[in-house]
C-alpha cells in the first residue's frame, strides 16, 4: 500500500513482512524493516513499541482512503491508496484540490453579526463575506476563492454551526 501524509512531500510504501506471533510484527517502510510489538489495540486506538520506542495512536474519523490520527498528541492525516487507485485517480483528472469547491463553510459556530456581500457580488479570495461572534469575539469569515456569490445561506442575527455553509461562490 502507498501512503501520503498531509504536509509531508515524501510518499511511503509500507507493508507487513513478517507476523512473529504474540502481537509482534516486522513492518517494511520504504525498504527499511522495523520491529513492532503491539501492547493494546481496539478499533479506536493502538499502543505499540516501534523499534524500542513506545507510541500511542488514536484513530479519529476514517474513510476508506483517508485516516485522521493522533500520534503521541500530534494530529496527522494520511491518505492511502494501492498503486492501481493512483492510476485511476490521475487519469480521471484528480490532483487539483479544494479550489473547485462551491461552498464557503464556517469553521466555527457563532452568531451572524453582519453580512458583507450580496448575491451576485463578485469577490476575491480573502474578502470578508460575513462577521461571526463567538466567545465574545468577532471573527471575519473570508472567501476561500475568487468568484461570484451565487447564494447566501445565512441571516443576520442567526446562528451557524461549525461546518454550516455560509455562501456558495462560483
Amino acid at each position, binding site marked *: *500500500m502507498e*501512503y501520503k*501524509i*498531509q*504536509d*509531508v512531500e*515524501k510518499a*511511503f510504501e*509500507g*507493508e*507487513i513482512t513478517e*507476523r512473529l*506471533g504474540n*502481537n509482534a*510484527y516486522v*513492518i517494511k*517502510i520504504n525498504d527499511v524493516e*522495523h520491529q*513492532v510489538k*503491539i501492547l*493494546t*489495540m*481496539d*478499533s479506536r486506538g*493502538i499502543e*505499540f513499541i*516501534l523499534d524500542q520506542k513506545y*507510541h500511542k*495512536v*488514536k*484513530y479519529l474519523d*476514517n474513510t476508506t482512503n483517508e*485516516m485522521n*490520527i*493522533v*500520534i*503521541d*498528541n*500530534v494530529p*496527522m492525516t*494520511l491518505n*492511502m491508496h494501492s498503486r492501481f487507485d493512483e492510476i485511476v485517480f490521475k487519469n480521471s483528472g484528480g490532483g487539483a484540490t479544494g479550489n473547485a469547491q462551491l461552498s464557503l463553510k464556517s*469553521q*466555527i*459556530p*457563532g452568531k451572524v*453579526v453582519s453580512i458583507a456581500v450580496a448575491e451576485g457580488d463578485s469577490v476575491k479570495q480573502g474578502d470578508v463575506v460575513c462577521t461571526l*461572534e*463567538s*466567545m*465574545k*469575539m*468577532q*471573527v*471575519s469569515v473570508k472567501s476561500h476563492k475568487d468568484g461570484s456569490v451565487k447564494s447566501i445561506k445565512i441571516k443576520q442575527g442567526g446562528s451557524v454551526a*461549525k461546518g454550516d455553509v455560509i455562501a456558495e461562490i462560483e
Partner: protein
Amino acid sequence: MIEKVLIANRGEIALRVIRTCQRLGIKTVAVYSDEDYNSMHVKKATEAYHIGEAAPAKSYLNQEKILDVMLSSGADAVHPGYGFLSENDDFARLCEKNKINFIGPTADSMNLCGDKMRCKSAMLKAQVPTVPGSPGLVKDVEEALNIANKIGYPVLLKSVYGGGGRGIRLVTNDKELREGFETVTSESISAVGKSAIIVEKFLEKTRHIEYQMCRDKHGNAVHLFERECSIQRRNQKLIEQTPSPVVDQKTRDRIGELVVKAAEAVDYTNLGTAEFLRSDDGEFYFIEINARLQVEHPISEMVSGLDFVKLQLDIANGEPLPFKQKDLKMNGYAIECRINAEDTFLDFAPSTGPVPDVTIPAGPNVRCDTYLYPGCTVSPFYDSLMAKLCTWGQTFEESRTRMLNALNDFYIQGVETSIPLYKTILETDEYKNGQLSTDFLKRFNIIERLKKDLKEEKIKNSETAVAAAILHSEYFKSRIQNSTQSNSTWKNKLD
C-alpha cells in the same frame, strides 16, 4: 469571619477559589447556567444553584438572580473571579447594600478604577506617569479622529468597560479608526452592556509589565512583584512570566513604590493589578488598574509562596496584612501559558465542542488550573481560556524546560488549542533571550515558524503514522477472519 462564599463565576477560576475555600473549611456555593450542568465547578462546590440560560446576560451577569441565590443559600461573601461581574461596581454596591462581603475593592474604588479617565487623573495627581491620549472620554468618532491626529497614529481605541483585551483596537489611520470605533462599541456592549471610548497613543516595541497590588482595609499596602505579559495577540495575553527579564531589583523597588502610591490614590483594597507599558527606552507608563484577581495570578503565587485567594479572604475579613514590603522576597522563576480553545491558523478563531479525552500535565513544579475533564464540553458562550499551565524553576531555564515538557504532555482532543504555538515560542532564541515585546508574534514571524515546526514534527512521525495505519488495517482484517475462523492473533488480549 467569612464562612460561606458564593462564587459568581465558572470555569477554572471558580475551581481555583473553591480549592482554597475547601482547604480552609469555608463552604462554597456555585452558580451555573443551562450550559454548565456538567461543569467542574458544579461538581466541586459544597452547593450548586442553577441561575439561568447559557447567555451570560441571562445567568452569570444576572445580578438579581445571583443575589437571590446569595440570600437563599446563606452565603456571607461573594467572590467574583475575573470577567463577568468582577469589575461591575453596581454589583459590588448591590452586595454592600445586602451586607454581603464582596471580595474585592469597594464599589467606589472600583468605580474610580473602571473610569479610565478619572483613574488617569488620580494617577497624574499621585505622580504616577501615564500614556499620552485623550484627556477624557471621546464624545464621538470625530473627536477621536482629532485627538488621534494630534498625538499621532498609531493609536489605541479602548472601551473603558473592556478589559482582558476585549473592547480594544489598534488603528493606524483615519479609515481604520472609523471602523474600529464601531467594532469596539459593539463588542463592549455585547460583553458588558455598555460602551465609552478613550483614545491613547500606541507605543511601539513596548513591553507589558504589571504589578500585583495588595492593600488591606487599614491602609497597609505592598506590591507582590511584577509580571511581564508581553507575549500577546491583539492585546490578549498569551504567555506571562515573572520576574521580567528587564526588571532588576532597583527598578522593581522604584516602580513598586509607584504601585503602592497608585493603590492609595484610588483607595484600593484587596488584591488588584496595576498595568504598565514599558517603552523600549526603559520608561514605565501606567495604563490601568484591573480591580480583581487576575488570570495570571498563579505565577505570582509561585514566586511569593502566597495563596492569593486566602490573602483576599483575609483582607475581606478585615485582617491586617501579615507582612511588610521588606519581608517579601521573590523566589525563582515562573511562566504561565494560557491554553485557549482557538485555531492559530484560522486567525485564532474560537474552537468549541466536546472534549472526549484530555491528559492534564503534572510533575514537580507544574501547576495546571483547568476545568477540563474527559467528556467535558468547551462552550461557545464563554471565554476561550480552557487551562492555565504554570511552571516554576529555580532558574528561568528550569521553568522554561519544565513548561516545554508539560506542553508536550498536554493533550486535548476535539478542539484546536494554542499548545503548538507555545511550544514554538518557548523554543525560539528570542524568547530564551528575553527579547519580549507586545508585537513579539509579528516581529519574529512566529506563525510561519510554527508552520515549519509542525511540518517537521509530522515528518519525524511519518514512519510511526504509516506503521499505525498498517496495523489498523491488519486489525480489521483479523477481525473479519475472526468472525469466520476460530484461530486469531488477536484472540488473547486485544478487544
